[in-house]
């Protein structure tokens, strides 16, 4: 994938993240009428994952892709792209797969 495309993915996921992360934070905020401890309870946390599983799935996907691509962009300034680029890309893709699997497993088991 060209670097320009990876930046388009970064920009697009940023816009999506702003909305879904705001939604996620509002679910944990005092605007719900619940105390902080109450929002972190097992019943509330699993309830949110069950009711809004598509939103949380989208949040997981965009956060992992955007975050790890950001790490890759920073690391590319430290490592030489021609000699270390392939190793970096491989590591980032492996980490993406790992975190997406972990998060998807949680969504499936809880949901």
């Amino acid at each position, binding site marked *: 994938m060209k670097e320009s495309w990876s*930046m*388009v993915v970064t*920009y697009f996921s*940023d*816009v999506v*993240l*702003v909305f879904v*992360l705001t939604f996620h*934070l509002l679910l944990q*905020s*005092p605007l719900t009428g619940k105390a*902080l401890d109450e929002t*972190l309870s*097992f019943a509330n*946390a*699993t309830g949110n*994952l069950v009711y809004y599983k598509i939103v949380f799935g989208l949040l*997981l996907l965009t*956060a*992992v892709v955007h*975050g*790890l691509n*950001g*790490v890759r962009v*920073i690391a590319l*300034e*430290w490592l030489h792209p021609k000699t270390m680029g392939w190793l970096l890309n491989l590591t980032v893709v492996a980490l993406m797969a790992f*975190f997406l699997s*972990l*998060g998807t*497993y*949680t969504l499936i*088991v*809880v949901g």
Partner: protein
Amino acid sequence: MKEARRYKSGLIPSLNPLGFNVERWSYTLHRATGVILIGYLAAHIFETFQLGAGSAAWANTMAALHSLGPFEMVGLWVVAGSALYHGANGIRLILNEMFGKLMGKPILPVYPYSPTSLGRNQRVAVWTITGTVLALWVWAGFYLLAGLGIV
């Protein structure tokens, strides 16, 4: 000579925004908050993974987090501030880099150089973001740190 050394000093000193304009400060803050957020994201995915193991595992996870004492809420407050800044500044960067907005029209580079990309609109955007994020961060602080007796 001193300036030349500064610009050729390598990557770590290049992250030092002291003595540079607001754009450079926002660049450094964007990187720093991004690194904080990716660290938190990894921990948060592991944390929520415990939900799948049942209520006892979740209670243990919460107990482990509470055992951090005030660092738990202070840490969340730092993450909240990082998310606010990174998100708001990210929107500004999209407007800049993807749509070419908030930047002046290109001009011939004539000495002394005055980059049009650091014009009034850009400075207003940076300071508006900074003010809004600070206000929301203080509000988040009241919510998160209230139980600690700090605020």
